[in-house]
């Protein structure tokens, strides 16, 4: 049965209208994957000798154990941002004689083959083998330790799914998780209660009593079953049936009226974002990533590398642009033929989208002004990045939209309505981020900081100046691609 489900997945990938784009992304991700594989493998092999060299007198395994908790939290964070939830189009399977449990298990087991589960192994196994080779402890003891570590990573794998799902359902549910982690982190940092040390001591106990390795494995099983139950409960076309159908939110966004001809489209887009889960997450993400600068600005290492700050500036002010913009016009895929036969000139349609994104860039730029705290240079850079985003990046992302062939189902049942946050999404954003960084870096190195900033600013203004023409050009391209888009958006499923 699993074999058949697997072949279904395979066909859905290769027979979809967006196979070219997906394949390109997969190849790019393959290279990145190769890079990380090598990096992790070298780190895994080198970990033992490195510790011996830099921390003489420390038992490497104990030292590593002390940092496991920190690592697990980091792992949770990057999985949250990069790992896609396992999804599958269950609707055609619902009426067939296949047990729910089978499909759910397939989906969950499939996720075990994720690259993100493979990475930690590259550290755990070489490090464990090195320990066995050095005979620091008994071989069985180290094997028990490795099993425990693998159990922990897999627990994170499944815990992430639960967290990510709650996040998409309800942003407020995330607050206790983030708050809890923050409290643990702060207590640890000020050495009030060092959870990471205690966690490490717990792991050390496995070396005394190898049978304790069963605990992380049990934890993994608990998370697995939790996921299983959760998915089985959602194995319905419409699991909202359990809840009362809520009163429709009939907010009118009347203030958009002042935009004249564009008003109906803007209203439409705001309703789209406000009333559907997936586009709504782009808003939450934008706000979340406003804090991104805090990682870079206070850090000494980056002070001499203003090119990094361009990256951060483009990212902070353009995060909504990247996440929302790259799925234009797929957001409207459910009713794309309607848009095509109604009296909607494509140029106006695109102008409205550009307007919405411009608005988001302006708002995010304003929200980022408190970074003035880190110096006027940073504020200036963020503003210039915002102008660059508006002038150059918005037309680029709209142009890229004409390659979209993949349908987004806004009304999908909650079982699989978690497409969205994944590695591919960030990769599409890379050119938008890297081009301005390279331009700035070039001018900064050859001439000066001021010249780099000026060039970005002038580019943005020129782009704004020619926006009308750029959009006309893009509209032409949409017109030519329209038939292929209609065809692609008609296909449902992944």
């Amino acid at each position: 049965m699993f074999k058949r489900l697997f072949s279904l997945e395979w066909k859905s990938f290769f027979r979809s209208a967006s196979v070219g784009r997906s394949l390109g992304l997969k190849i790019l991700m393959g290279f990145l994957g190769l890079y990380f594989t090598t990096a992790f493998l070298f780190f895994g092999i080198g970990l033992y000798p490195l510790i011996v060299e830099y921390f003489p007198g420390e038992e490497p395994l104990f030292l590593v154990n002390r940092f496991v908790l920190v690592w697990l939290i980091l792992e949770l964070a990057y999985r949250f941002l990069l790992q896609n939830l396992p999804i599958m189009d269950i609707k055609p399977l619902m009426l067939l004689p296949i047990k729910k449990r089978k499909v759910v298990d397939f989906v969950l087991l499939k996720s075990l083959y994720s690259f993100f589960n493979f990475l930690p192994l590259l550290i755990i196994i070489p490090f464990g083998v090195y320990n066995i080779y050095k005979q620091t402890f008994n071989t069985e003891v180290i094997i028990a330790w490795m099993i425990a570590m693998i159990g922990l990573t897999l627990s994170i794998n499944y815990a992430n799914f639960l967290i990510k799902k709650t996040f998409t359902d309800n942003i407020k549910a995330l607050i206790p998780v983030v708050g809890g982690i923050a409290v643990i982190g702060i207590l640890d940092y000020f050495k009030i209660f060092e959870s990471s040390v205690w966690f490490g001591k717990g792991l050390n106990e496995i070396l005394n009593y190898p049978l304790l390795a069963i605990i992380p494995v049990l934890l993994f099983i608990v998370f697995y079953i939790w996921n299983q139950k959760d998915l089985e409960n959602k194995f319905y076309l419409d699991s909202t049936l359990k809840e009362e159908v809520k009163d429709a939110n009939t907010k009118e966004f009347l203030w958009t009226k002042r935009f004249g001809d564009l008003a109906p489209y803007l209203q439409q887009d705001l309703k789209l974002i406000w009333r559907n889960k997936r586009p709504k997450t782009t808003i939450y993400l934008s706000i979340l990533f406003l804090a991104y600068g805090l990682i870079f600005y206070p850090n000494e290492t980056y002070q001499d590398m203003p090119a990094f700050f361009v990256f951060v500036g483009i990212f902070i002010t353009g995060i909504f642009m990247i996440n929302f913009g790259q799925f234009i016009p797929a957001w409207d895929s459910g009713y794309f033929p309607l848009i095509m036969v109604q009296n909607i000139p494509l140029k106006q349609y695109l102008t409205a989208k550009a307007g919405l994104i411009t608005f988001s860039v302006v708002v995010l730029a304003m929200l980022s002004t408190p970074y003035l705290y880190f110096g006027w240079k940073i504020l200036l850079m963020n503003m210039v990045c915002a102008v660059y985003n508006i002038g150059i990046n918005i037309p680029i992302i709209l142009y890229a939209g004409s390659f979209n062939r993949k349908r987004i189902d806004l009304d999908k049942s909650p079982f699989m309505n978690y497409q969205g946050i994944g590695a591919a999404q960030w990769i599409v954003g890379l050119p938008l981020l890297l081009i301005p960084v390279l331009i700035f870096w070039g001018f900064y190195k050859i001439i000066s900081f001021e010249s780099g900033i000026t060039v970005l600013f002038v580019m943005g203004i020129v782009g704004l100046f020619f926006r009308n023409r750029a959009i006309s050009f893009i509209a032409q391209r949409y017109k030519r691609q329209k038939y292929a888009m209609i065809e692609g958006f008609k296909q449902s499923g992944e």
Partner: protein
Amino acid sequence: MITATNLTKVYNKTTVLNIEHLDIPTGQSMGLVGNNGAGKTTFFSMLLDLIQPTTGNIFNNDITVSQNEEWKSFTSSFIDESFLIGYLTPEEYFYFIGDLRKQNKADVDALLQNFEDFFHDEIIGKRKYLRDLSKGNQKKVRIVAALIGNPKVIILDEPFANLDPTTQIRLKKIIKDLTAQKETTILISSHDLIHITEVCERIVVLDKGDMVKDILTSPATLDELETYFSRDLRLNQ
């Protein structure tokens, strides 16, 4: 009003539609019938510039539909589910379509008044999103939306399918009222021969992409069509 010349559509070397010449004068109501795969939806999709013809052209009020978008302002249509925006309430949807067709709220409200009994008090003012309505009610919304803004051309693909009997009868009345004024050109496809002969002045039969019959409706038309569509059955007997 609508003219198709040398129109063909070929998919993988199979011709799915081949109309040498079809002319629909202003104000006519034309019914399109044919078995599955006859090319009805293909024809409508080409008329709405949703797919490109392999050869030939369609003119809507002398505008070549694939080259100029002017026809959109006076043509309205109803094809399949992909014509509904699920996250809007019915009112919002009507106003949105109205906005696009240069109708203000009052105009739309006035039009909706006429359909009060058609909606059967299940659609307006219920504070529900379209995605939460039943399939039949969604269909009613799509039909009425196609009538907003006094379109000169209306295209309805299988409007009778999946409607309850009361609504079918009401819909027939709506279409008849529209055709009586002789101003709106209406194109309807249907599998229901009784309904279609009742509301259309002219019936075109498609078979595997070819136009096999083109008749002006008369009391004998229904019989003629029934005989035509049961020909295979008789051959076997």
